[in-house]
């Protein structure tokens, strides 16, 4: 798929010389991702992984033509790093950090208004387009090229779904993690639209969870605008009221936040709904055969 990460994407990493960014940049390069360099303030002019290091994102963009950035800055510094990437005109900004203060993201989203930047995350495993590359922390070996688009909040549940699909011989066009935070950069509907427009995607699997209106909003959008089959799963059927289930955004604050309410609405809208997480792969197969 060509919207967020494609064969022409030129990738940089912010926080490049750190331990995590180093490991995941190497992993990304192993599967063919075009990594052009990275940013670590104070280390500009040096080399890391045989690639140039810059002091600022602006310099990195000027020198390498980068249009995708993977941000590996720790949570207290992540908001600043995202805004620096927006300022430098980066198109796709992938934010791995788990634990960015919510009000920081409120300010980031305000700063992003009117720009062409798309923020994927925070608190996401990232993006992978099998056969092309990845910006993220997912184990690339479990993915394989194919024609199913995946969008999910959770990382490991995404892996679970991929494993079930692989057992049935189904590969992925792209897999996008929008992250588990209450205020995130890109919602489900935006990613669904990208998959709907992508000629390399035949069907889309949406993996949501309790809390917030995004899953239902996306299903409503899909009902009106999507011709490709949409398969939906919502985790947290057995989650209690008012508790944050690991993800900052996974909290049932009202009736409409529950998994049951979301699933019922999606079913009423005519989506392919998965109730048992063990049936994700089988339901995707059923959807593309119908």
């Amino acid at each position: 798929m060509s919207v967020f990460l494609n064969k022409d994407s030129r990738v940089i990493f912010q926080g490049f010389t750190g331990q995590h960014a180093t490991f995941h940049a190497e992993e990304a390069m192993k599967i063919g991702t075009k990594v052009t360099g990275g940013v670590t303030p104070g280390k500009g002019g040096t080399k890391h992984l045989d690639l140039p290091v810059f002091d600022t994102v602006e310099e990195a963009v000027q020198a390498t033509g980068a249009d995708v950035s993977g941000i590996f800055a720790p949570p207290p510094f992540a908001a600043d790093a995202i805004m620096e990437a927006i300022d430098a005109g980066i198109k796709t900004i992938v934010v791995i950090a788990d634990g960015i203060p919510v009000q920081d993201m409120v300010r980031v989203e305000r700063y992003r208004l009117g720009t062409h930047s798309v923020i994927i995350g925070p608190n996401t495993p990232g993006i992978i387009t099998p056969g092309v590359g990845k910006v993220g922390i997912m184990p690339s070996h479990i993915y394989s090229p194919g024609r199913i688009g995946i969008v999910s909040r959770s990382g490991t549940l995404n892996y679970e779904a991929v494993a079930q699909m692989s057992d049935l011989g189904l590969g992925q066009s792209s897999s996008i993690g929008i992250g588990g935070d209450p205020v995130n950069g890109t919602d489900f509907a935006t990613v669904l639209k990208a998959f709907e427009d992508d000629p390399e995607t035949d069907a889309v699997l949406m993996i949501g969870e309790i809390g917030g209106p995004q899953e239902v909003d996306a299903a409503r959008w899909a009902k009106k605008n999507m011709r490709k089959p949409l398969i939906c799963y919502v985790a947290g059927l057995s989650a209690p009221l008012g508790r944050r289930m690991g993800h900052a955004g996974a909290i049932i604050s009202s009736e409409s936040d529950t998994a049951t309410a979301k699933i019922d609405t999606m079913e009423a809208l005519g989506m392919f709904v998965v109730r048992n997480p063990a049936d994700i792969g089988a339901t995707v197969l059923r959807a593309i055969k119908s």
Partner: protein
Amino acid sequence: MNIHEYQTKDLLKHYGVPVPPGRVVHSDAQAAMVAEEIGGARWVVKAQIHSGGRGKAGGVRVGSSIEEVRVIADEILGSLLVTHQTGTEGRLVRRVLVEQASTIAREYYVGLVIDRATRRITLVASAEGGVDIEEVAEKTPELIIREIIDPAVGLLDFQCRKVAYKVGLKGSLLPQAVKVMKGLYRCMRDNDALMAEINPLAVVDNDQLLALDAKMSFDDNALYRRPAISELRDFDEEDPKEVEATGHGLNYIALDGDVGCIVNGAGLAMATMDAITLHGGSPANFLDVGGGATPEKVANAFHIVLQDPAVKIILINIFAGINRCDWIATGIIQAMRDQNIKMPIIIRLAGTNVEEGRAILNDSKFPFIIASDLNDAAAIAVAEINKIVKKVAPLEKEHS
């Protein structure tokens, strides 16, 4: 992180929000002293626990004499308050707030939330104060007034006026309402709160606005830069297992069932609970070991899950991405040895280093039950629980 009502009121006072004169106390004698000190003819004694519905549970009572205040404080302090949020076992009251009682003419609701759809802080107000705002929102949504706040400029005066007029705060109450709303907003913004509400915001004698009850909760992820807020944390109000888990970098939430769960990733942890439930079982907890879990972290997870006496079996579901199945397996064996675990352990491993992990489990002498996938794991867990429950069921009958 949640804080007590008296702490919220102290904070709000610093932002110019008027609150009744009062103080928190730990004994009935102190309660009487405070009532005397603040003066008045009637006082309200309010149990300080992290829960709504305290009034209905008998935790908020009015006394008309100093002696009556003392007696009420004595009765509430040390009692177990049962509300809709505490569970049937109730919550021990360790302190009460003693305040001057007011004559209430009208009650309003004013609150701030982070609206996930607009990704902004939103001011919410209603002329229907003093009641559950969720109920008002559901039954009479037209009575809820909303104003979205642009973080670049903050809550503006005209927005406050708009909201005040719409709920009917006019005349001499208008400038007071603007001050309250702006104070509440600054308090939320400056302290990284996730929500802040005054309910009720009351009109009392002489047309004064007063925050009679207030609640705030804070962003755990921002506590590193809010040391004054971190100080307000009351560990007595939290599940000790959850506190221990946080200390070990684990995410644990106690539930009512008997299948202990150890999973990596929040989404997969919820899905695992769901799979158990769909097979007719009941999860005892949510537990996410996170990414890059070391053997020690896995062993700590066992320690926390096993503190719950209801746990009869443990289901481990790992899909390793940045985790390593061999580290997880090593941690499981460490826990089995050190914690002398006898109950059935069902393990599903997948992802990074899965072969090494399975080999470690096989080489040990422990009778693990290995599941091939998520469905298999949940089905086995529920079958194992049913075996155990059948064995103990006759005993339970004798007791009843």
